């Protein structure tokens, strides 16, 4: 049996350090997800507007976010602003900014899509029953929109968690960086540590994302009965 370098994980506090790193990854992504949902839903509602000005601006924002690689965005916010504006951003704060900027755009587009997918007749039959705009929106349209939104937004959340592995490039010590440090530190005593450590990192990402996927599956199933 080849040496997979698993034993490194049990040396010292290595496992605890990896879990600490996972927490950094999850913290960054969950704060960013919070911002993305909080800002993305109202923005998505704004995006359903028929005003051409609003359409162009929001479209532009979305395209910029989509076209630009997240890593470039990270470098721009972390290194770029330091030189250009003299801001001394903490790397974690910079990461949250970039991930929120990205997540908010994607979330808004999902919200917009979910809203316009509700047939016009749903509005009309609700109105014909004497409901005012507030009731039509809150009782009829919004609940249906949220149901359509759920699987799509869960997909976005797991994508955001996975993409946080990029933040090590600006010096945030998250799970992947901790893994690298452990491998480096044990280079002579356990030269095969890479497989065991990276394999564990993979598993940790899975543990982080899987419950979210399961929750979404559960809710979908529950709502699908209706």
């Amino acid at each position, binding site marked *: 049996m080849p040496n997979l370098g698993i034993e490194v994980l049990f040396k010292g506090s290595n496992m605890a350090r990896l879990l600490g790193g996972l927490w950094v990854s999850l913290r960054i992504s969950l704060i960013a997800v919070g911002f993305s949902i909080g800002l993305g839903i109202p923005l998505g509602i704004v995006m359903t507007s028929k005003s051409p000005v609003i359409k162009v601006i929001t479209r532009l924002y979305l395209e910029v976010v989509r076209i630009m690689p997240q890593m470039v965005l990270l470098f721009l916010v972390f290194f770029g602003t330091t030189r250009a504006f003299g801001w001394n951003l903490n790397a974690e704060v910079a990461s949250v900014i970039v991930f929120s900027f990205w997540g908010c755009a994607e979330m808004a587009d999902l919200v917009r899509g979910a809203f316009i997918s509700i047939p016009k*007749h749903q509005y009309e039959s609700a109105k014909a029953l*004497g409901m005012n705009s507030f009731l039509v929106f809150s009782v009829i349209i919004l609940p249906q929109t949220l149901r359509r939104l759920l699987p799509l937004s869960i997909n976005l959340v797991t994508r955001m968690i996975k993409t946080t592995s990029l933040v090590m490039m600006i010096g945030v010590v998250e799970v992947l960086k901790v893994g690298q440090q452990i491998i480096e530190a044990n280079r002579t005593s356990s030269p095969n540590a890479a497989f065991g450590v990276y394999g564990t990192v993979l598993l940790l990402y899975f543990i982080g994302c899987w419950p979210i996927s399961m929750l979404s599956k559960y809710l979908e199933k529950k709502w699908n009965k209706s």
Partner: protein
Amino acid sequence: MSVNKKEEIIRVDHITKRYDENSVLEDFSLSVYEGEVVVIVGPSGCGKSTILRIMNGLEPIQKGEVTYRGEKVDGKLGSITRIREKVGMVFQSYELFPHKTILQNVMLSPVLVQKRDRKEVREEALQLLARVGLLEKKDNYPRQLSGGQKQRVAIVRALAMHPEVLLFDEVTAALDPEMVREVLDVLLSLAKEGKTMVIVTHEMSFAKAIADRVIFLDGGHLEEEGTATEFFEHPKTERAKQFLNTFTYAKVEREE
């Protein structure tokens, strides 16, 4: 006509409706009196559904005025929700709320809009569902029902609001032929009760059976108006004769 002595409920007064440049209705007028069943017929695209939508304030109009018991019907006014409580509408595509059960669909507006007692509304909703033979479906969701069943629920949902007038917009057009009957039977029983109704339909034999008054519309104009017998047995205008002819077929004579 004797019905004219009754109280006028809805008045459509010289209205003109245009989509962009196309005129859909041109200087059209119609009054609906208490207890009468008005059936609007005409070729596709003649503007019949648009009339119902305008009566419910769902379409803006360019000229003229629609009133319900003297009050202006306008989708932009705050009073519209109060009017819509009294003017029920049932659509071709049923449009039940997919995230609510059948019973919830029926109870929603009486409870939320009219703020009636939940228990009393539930009692009535169950009675109405029983009446259309759908009591056992009360806890199902709309997608578990057939088209005809959904449409009967949509009618019950409108009835639960205690409307004074009911507008039916081609309620059987999306249904399979064998389901048309079950829905039209509900309408016939409502007519027997003396409900005021305005019905847009393509079912001519049904129109003949239920109508007190038939309105024949063509190209956004009122072409002919009369009692069901007058219109179907002795149409006056050429256009109406032509239209009614499209529903009859001559026997094919095979060449020997």
